[in-house]
């Protein structure tokens, strides 16, 4: 059964339609990337998946269960987690409190999860008492990953995880995503501006254009698609 399904989802902001019959699936253990230019509907798609907006028509399903009307907390309990755009760590809270906030929806197993995150990211353990705002961009991205892992998800939604990072961190973050996918069997849905980088680690991809799914397919096929190359890869 698919981890996540969007089934002909349409979303409106007031009178304005932002998404038109968007359908997509994420299977267990997959890295899927969502590509598209400005105002193509990427962020709205993410919001709809997380439960921050409600679709007017269509359905959102997590592991086969309808969640279209469920608040974010309910979706997180069903295995969804989020790495927000621009990381958005809580700057004045300590690293550890940031991680614990990621486990807000859980009542048990929090300490064990914390230990496991510290094991994966020793850097965070070193800085556990430090305010998150004092970390470097790369460390903040690690913290955002760790915070998402605290709810023991099966699928993490990432909104532009490489945005605003120094070039040396970009590759490291992509390696990290690939490693999370490989070692923990996590499925990842990520929105990216940088199509080439995203497709280099993804299994499949979707291309959004003005609220419609314009293209979809295996990463390798997309990367060779001439339309993609002209539109997003600048070649």
């Amino acid at each position: 059964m698919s981890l996540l399904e969007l089934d002909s989802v349409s979303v409106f902001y007031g009178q304005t339609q932002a998404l038109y019959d968007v359908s997509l699936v994420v299977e267990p253990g997959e890295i899927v990337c969502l590509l598209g230019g400005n105002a193509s509907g990427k962020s709205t798609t993410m919001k709809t998946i997380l439960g921050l907006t409600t679709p007017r028509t269509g359905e959102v399903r997590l592991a086969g269960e309808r969640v279209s009307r469920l608040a974010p907390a309910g979706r997180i309990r069903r295995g969804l987690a989020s790495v927000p755009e621009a990381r958005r760590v809580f700057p004045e809270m300590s690293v550890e409190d940031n991680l614990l906030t990621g486990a807000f929806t859980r009542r048990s197993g929090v300490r064990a999860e914390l230990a496991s995150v510290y094991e994966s990211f020793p850097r965070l353990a070193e800085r556990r008492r430090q305010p998150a705002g004092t970390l470097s961009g790369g460390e903040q991205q690690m913290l955002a990953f760790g915070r998402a892992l605290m709810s023991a998800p099966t699928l993490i939604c990432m909104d532009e995880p490489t945005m605003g990072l120094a070039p040396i961190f970009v590759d490291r973050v992509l390696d990290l995503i690939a490693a999370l996918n490989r070692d923990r069997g996590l499925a990842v849905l990520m929105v990216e501006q940088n199509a080439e980088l995203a497709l280099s680690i993804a299994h499949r991809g979707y291309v959004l254009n003005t609220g419609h799914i314009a293209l979809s397919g295996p990463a390798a096929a997309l990367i060779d698609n001439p339309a993609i190359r002209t539109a997003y890869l600048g070649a």
Partner: protein
Amino acid sequence: MLDTALAGLVNGSSYALLALGLSLIFGVANVINFAHASVFAVGAMSGWWFSVDLDWPLWTVLLGVVAVTGLLGLVINLVAVTPLAKAPPIAALLSTFAVSVVVDNGAQLVFGPETRRFPALLATDNLGLGGLRFGTLDVTILVVAIGLMLLLGWFLRATRYGRAIRAVAQDRDAAAQMGIPLARVQNLAFVVASVLGGVAGVLGGMYLNNISPTVGSTVGMSAFAAATLGGLGSLPGAVAGGLLLGVVEAFGVSWWGGNARTLITFAVLLLVLWVRPSGLFGKRTPLAAEPMTGTFFGAARTVRLKPWQVAVAAVAAYVVPAVALDDYTVQIGVQVVVYAILALSLTLVSGQAGQISLGQAAPLAIGAYTSALLTTATGMDFWLSLPVAGVVAAVLSVVLVSPSWRLRGHYVSIATLATGLLVAAAAVNFDWLTNGPSGVSAIPPPSLFGAEVSAPLAVYFLDLTILLVVLLLVVRLRRSTLGRIWSAVREDEVAARSSGIAAADYKSLAFGIGGFVAGIGGALFAQQYGYIDPSVFGISVSLLALTIVVLGGLNSPLGAVVGAIVLVGLPEALRMLEETRMLTYGLLLLAVVLFRPQGLMGKVAR
């Protein structure tokens, strides 16, 4: 020395508890909760009721107050803050202000307005340490207050919902993505803050010994000052600000007497806003770009009357009272006209230039005192004192408020509130000039062509004529280039400044012209009564002026006149009692903000 410092700390711990709640709410909901002061009053009054009428012991009194004020906090959030979450912050500022008026005056109706003694539950002078004398009461207040602060600190650091409150305060969107229920967390923050405020009410009541349903407004203003002093949104700042202000006030009172307390509080508050608006502990971030009124009222356009309709209305305003109304009704008309002038001054400041003023009683008072003192003490002619009153009010308005032009939004409103209260406090304290609390009497009526203008109808004609001139001035100004610049500053200050508009200068100009108009109104006010004292220019006058313009349509000159007729004329004609009148103003303001933000005379643009 030490006695005074200790007394200051004990009193300051009440301020600190209140300021903590204000900062907590500001952090989570981005709202300055003007109703928080009323929570203090309800805490004090219900504490009094539990201990005196029901004879409960202290710990059950505290538990009862916790329950009452916690519930009150929840209601304040659900009624006045949550429904306005998508409106700009000014809407919630007005609605919580309205709730505070409703709660204070509702409590007066329930408990009666009189001041009562808080029972001496604990001894006040039974302990000593070195040369210092103090009582179980002082120790209890400090222990309870510090205990609560530690408890709050533990709650915010070590519990799931405590962390959630901090997360929401730092990044609402990210918190939502972690599955934190924003609405529930905001409710919780209001409950926690209000419980602290309620307990502060009991402690403060025991300490002050005397309480009344309006005790909140004085203590609450001190708490605003304390929270701003520490840095809004900073919890350690709130504690430090509260204790510091308590000590400063205690020394000030011991040197200059009890009347000086409010003067010190608002002087400190204004000074902080001028010199270090982010407070002692605050970061420099809270002043984000935030056009205050544009989006809230911008959707409304004012109803326009045709010239012949205006002419008919003006002629009727002269003729009808002359032929059909008795002296009593004409006197009501005089009041309506003076308040309409005051409201028109706000139409310029708050409607056209978009700077919400909670202290428009200040230029009214300054104008009234200037004219009254000049005509009584120096024998100056009223007609000369009238423009002088306007100019003095204009200059002082600008001088007092313009240092806060570096600030935005909430802070400007706090500064105007402080200005209003400071002027009233100054009128009480500067008795060498103002004759203090006893006021100025025997103000001579003006004369015109050798005849005294003192009959109600004559006064009415005089005031009405000035109103029409002011109305014409305001309408012309709105259509001028200056009016368009003010609109630009109101709608989007950043964009206006990018277009080369010196926003601060234009805001000062709005306050100056508004102050001039209000000062003229004040002069008329003084001549009309022949007697003024500081209590006439309290916060209720500022509130009434604001309610008039919000009801009429914040940016509608005609609305100001209609609002004055509805809010000043009707209650007078119906002979409503003072408490019910204030209660009605509060409810009306709340209803307008919630349900008809464009006011009676505004229509929504389609």
